[in-house]
């Protein structure tokens, strides 16, 4: 198969069952298969308890599935040595929902970025400043000595995105990246993610409860309920013309203004 046809990320028959405090099995992910192509934007939509965050963590290699296979660029992750696993994982970076919580409050922007660049050797002040510039923290050099609490919510979100970009990922898994962002700057964050995609051909797997964001941002939408994908397709089609009853209920529950 030519390289271009191998999906960036492929999950096949992934199963994960947890046990709750009482020992009862909780089927968080039941036999899920999905693919993410190069430069593709996928939204994984569902409510709390749907298993969407567990699925994201499995794709990140943070949770090992009970069954199933994960392939990155066609290579199965589950069969790799721990070192190869770490190297392969490098292509995926999370942006967690609370940008503040994922940033050590005592580290300066310079230290937080150096940590993200790791051993790549590109974590010089000039390299960091250039990357900060590219996410709209301009001029980047002025942000180097600052601490997270000295940044606004929007700036922290941009810093989290810059950290994710430091290792030049092919795929960014973003778990509710906008839930902490104010409405008036949400469009700025989405535009930044689009710019990054255009410049670097990054793919996104966005985990979100926000139907409006999924509809406008993603190429493809997967709707998850109780560990299963109940509906899947191009975002416009799925969210404008839903087939599954759960998708319909989810859309109907979102309060909208009369003018929208």
């Amino acid at each position, binding site marked *: 198969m030519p390289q271009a046809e191998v999906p960036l990320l492929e999950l096949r028959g992934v199963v994960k069952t947890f046990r709750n405090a009482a020992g009862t099995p909780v089927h968080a992910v039941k036999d899920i298969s999905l693919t993410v192509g190069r430069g593709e934007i996928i939204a994984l939509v569902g409510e709390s308890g749907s298993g969407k965050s567990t699925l994201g963590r499995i794709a990140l290699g943070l949770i090992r599935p009970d069954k199933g296979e994960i392939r990155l660029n066609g290579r199965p992750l589950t069969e790799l040595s721990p070192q190869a696993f770490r190297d392969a994982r490098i292509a995926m970076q999370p942006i967690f929902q609370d940008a503040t919580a994922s940033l050590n409050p005592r580290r300066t922007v310079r230290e937080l970025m150096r940590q993200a660049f790791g051993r790549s050797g590109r974590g010089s002040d000039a390299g960091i400043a250039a990357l900060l510039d590219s996410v709209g923290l301009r001029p980047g050099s002025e942000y180097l000595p600052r601490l997270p609490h000295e940044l*606004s919510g929007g700036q922290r979100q941009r810093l989290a995105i810059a950290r994710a970009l430091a290792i030049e990922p092919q795929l960014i898994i973003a778990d509710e990246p906008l839930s902490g962002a104010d409405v*008036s*700057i949400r469009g700025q964050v989405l535009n930044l993610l689009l710019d990054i995609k255009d410049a670097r051909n990054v793919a996104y797997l966005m985990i979100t409860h926000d139907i*409006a964001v999924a509809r406008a941002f993603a190429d493809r939408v997967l709707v998850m309920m109780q560990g299963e994908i109940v509906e899947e397709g191009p975002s416009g089609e799925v969210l404008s013309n839903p087939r599954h009853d759960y998708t319909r209920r989810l859309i*109907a529950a979102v309060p909208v*203004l009369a003018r929208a």
Partner: protein
Amino acid sequence: MNGDQRATPIVKVEGLRISYLRGGNAVTAVKEASLAIRPGEAVGLVGESGSGKSTLARSLLGLNPQSRSQIDAGSIVIAGTDVTRYGPSQWEKIRGRPVAMIFQDPLTYLNPVMRIGRQIAESVRRHDRGADVRARVAELLRLVKLPEAIARAYPHELSGGMRQRVLIAIALGCRPKLLIADEPTTALDVTTQAEIMALLAELRERLGMAMLLISHDLGLVGSACSRIYVMYAGYVIENGSNGDVFIRPAHPYTKGLLLSAEVKRNADGRFVTIGGDVPNPATIVEGCPFRPRCPVAMDECGTMPAFTPIPNRAAHEVRCWYVERHPVIQAEEIHAAS
């Protein structure tokens, strides 16, 4: 949803200014806010982080700690009584009636080691000493559509939606005339949110209760409230009927906020957004705080304008020099500019 606009307001706030004391510095969270809520009406207060909306709401129950915050100017009148200078013990007496409040995180406001029934009973006893407490607790649980058995449960045994219903029951235990709901569904899933909002609408109808709904979610406020106040950086900058503020907004900020909330792309595939950042309350901006982000800012914007009524609209007012200078074509021109 419409309250009687001639009736005495349950709450009337005028020119309110509230500061927090942090270290040796005072940070003014509410710079100038006025609002009135009349019996039975549903009023929405929208704003982003740092807008001062929660500080304003909490001041209506005396919940901003007096050791760390102070009212610098303006007045709060509740049911005809000026409570601006009330001390903690005076607030304690009126808290819950006529004004009660529910919050985003019910767990913080529930006692983890006390059964639900007792917590509701305590609220009933606050203002009704002679009440048949058992019967009243059962009635309140029925009102919020929870089974009676919940009375014996502890908060951690309940789901987020059920906890919010318990908090509503506790608030209703005081028989309030006004329920303040501060982001009551932000922590909940959309389907649970819809259930809680339907419950609040039904309770308002049944009990003739007014509501002040505070949220960053414009869709939520727009679907539940008949009158809207918009706050930005400590100021109420626009208010009017739901139809005027959300369908024919006048202030450039309200306009931009509504466009942002739709999460739509323009012809170039870009998301519509407001440039710049939401101001930090500690930053002091001379004049209109929206000026640094405003697409139609003018020289006059270096001073904060007074409220201007919009011609031919009942009780739609805005604080904006641009709108004041362009009273007829304001909305369209701002739309074109943004």
